[in-house]
């Protein structure tokens, strides 16, 4: 999917203008770009670098550091499964294995039909009601195998 549908440059310019004059604008700009296009298109980097007077390498160095940024759009639904200790104590590893097996993908991947992205996450602050997940931004607690299957089959969280 090419981000360039003719409006790309104009939308990017508008977005950069919104952040002009802000201190430390790079991270919010990258987040705004991802909110706009669902990922950070490579094509956006030169304009961002130029606007902030940075080298493309510097922008890339920031972008590549964080787990949140995507190089390609996510699936239509994003399931973030917690893999951290408190959720492990409640069986999160088995749920992670179940999700990967059922979807036939690894952590951080999207199913071939673009339906679901499975992201690992390390703690959602729901550690007293684990295993926990974030399904399209909605918190889910005490996840079990049946509920996970329903979520992966397309049920609302």
């Amino acid at each position: 999917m090419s981000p360039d549908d003719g409006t790309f440059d104009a939308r990017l310019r508008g977005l950069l203008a919104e952040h002009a004059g802000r201190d430390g604008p790079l991270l919010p700009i990258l987040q705004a770009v991802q909110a706009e296009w669902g990922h950070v298109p490579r094509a956006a980097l030169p304009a961002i670098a130029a606007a902030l007077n940075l080298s493309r390498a510097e922008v890339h160095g920031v972008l590549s550091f964080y787990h949140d940024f995507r190089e390609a759009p996510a699936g239509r639904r994003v399931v973030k499964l917690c893999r951290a200790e408190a959720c492990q104590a409640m069986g999160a590893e088995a749920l992670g294995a179940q999700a990967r097996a059922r979807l036939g993908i690894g952590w951080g991947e999207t199913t071939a039909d673009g339906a679901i992205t499975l992201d690992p996450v390390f703690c959602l602050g729901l550690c007293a009601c684990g295993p926990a997940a974030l399904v399209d931004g909605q918190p889910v607690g005490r996840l079990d195998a049946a509920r996970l299957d329903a979520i992966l089959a397309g049920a609302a969280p």
Partner: protein
Amino acid sequence: MKVWLSQDAAARALGAEAVAAALTAEAARRGVALDLVRTGSHGMVWLEPLVEVQGPAGRLAFGPMTPADVPALFDAPAAHPRALGETLALPWMRRQTRLTFARCGMTDPLDLGAYEAAGGLAGLRRALAMPPAEVVQAVTESGLRGRGGAGFPTGIKWRTAAGASAPQKHIVCNADEGDSGTFADRMLIEGDPFCLIEGMAIAGHAVGATRGWVYLRSEYPDAIRTLARALGIARDMGLLGPRVLGHGPAFDIELRVGAGAYVCGEETSLLNSIEGRRPVVRAKPPLPAHEGLFGQPTVVNNVLTLASVPVILAEGPAFWRDFGIGRSRGTIPLQIAGNVRRGGLFEAAFGLTLGEIVDDIAGGTASGRPVKAVQVGGPLGAYFPRALFGTPFGYEEFAARGGLIGHAGIVLFDDSADMLALARFAMEFCALESCGKCTPCRIGAVRGVETLDRIARGDAAARPLLEELCETMKFGSLCALGGFTPYPVTSAMTHFPDDFARPREAAA
């Protein structure tokens, strides 16, 4: 009918929205006027969604509620199968000393009037009537130490920043809360955000900073939404702006959202992240209090540290200092999590033993099996066996037993836990999250995973190697990510040797 229901993310994760919808629908069906207040959480996560109904003497609690339990609430509340009695009389509530979390669960988090009626803004008012140096003095005398993990005395940090002269200073609130097993920052921001804003305004006055920042992790969408709205309200109502409360100094707060990197909770990495640099850890000195955000003097404090300041100013430093043990003064919001029967937030004076917390307050595991290990202080904290359950909850007390209290997360594991797997995970996590600036952390963690795999295959010769590696990481790392990852690893090895004594398997 007056009803309270939490909108904390944990309550929502357990079905609070469906219960809210059922309450509204049932009230409409019966023609009852429903006054539904969405609050933060009291912290009794095992009882969420917790519904409260106005009773003759106080609020009556019902939980955990499902939509099917709602109609009976409108008939005879006292006979309801989920009736628990008066909220504040429940043992979990009665046994706490809620100072930082006094309002959390009680009020609508975005109702500034209710905040003030429940004691909010008293600390800020008192602080604004004092010269800045006296505010710093009060915080120093309270004995408050940083709740982000290192336990550094807050008053000393503030004094350093106050003493630095610069045209611009900053208060940065660390709301990155990346530790597994911790959620107090999230609960406070979702349940009582004005308390944090008030604490930051006091800090601004105390050190002469006019700009505040909250660095909030992206994994907390609900908290982001609530804090953004609270900041807008605070500006509209004059709590923030050119003159705090109409007569104070200028102070405003900018919300910054993280992007999923554990190391950004380390304060210098966090500052780089805000500045838009690659968020590697900075070498110290210079201290952030001298040269922090954009090279200007900066106080970096955890959410709970800042949110404890209003009550200290309102009640006086002695009130706070009189709680606690040794050099751990005041209260600590314990977060009890993992495989736990009664999990949630429990604020108490320092000094409870780990055993009291685990067995008595939390009631052991959710699975009903014996507690095998308890990890205290997040992914960089040690695993404690039952033999050490006598340890009183305090900074020095935990350090003396090879552990740390960190951000006060307490994670229970039952006897099915595989301590070697958990030690391996600690190394794996460090490797995944290392900022890469120093070798002991970046390379050491990768070697750690390999070495633990060798031990898992029954290669006993790998054990001394792992011990050596842990020493190197401990003393050679730039920050506590590499420096403290050995805590969970060596504590697991020391206290649970059986899990590391594997029979040799066929070579992989």
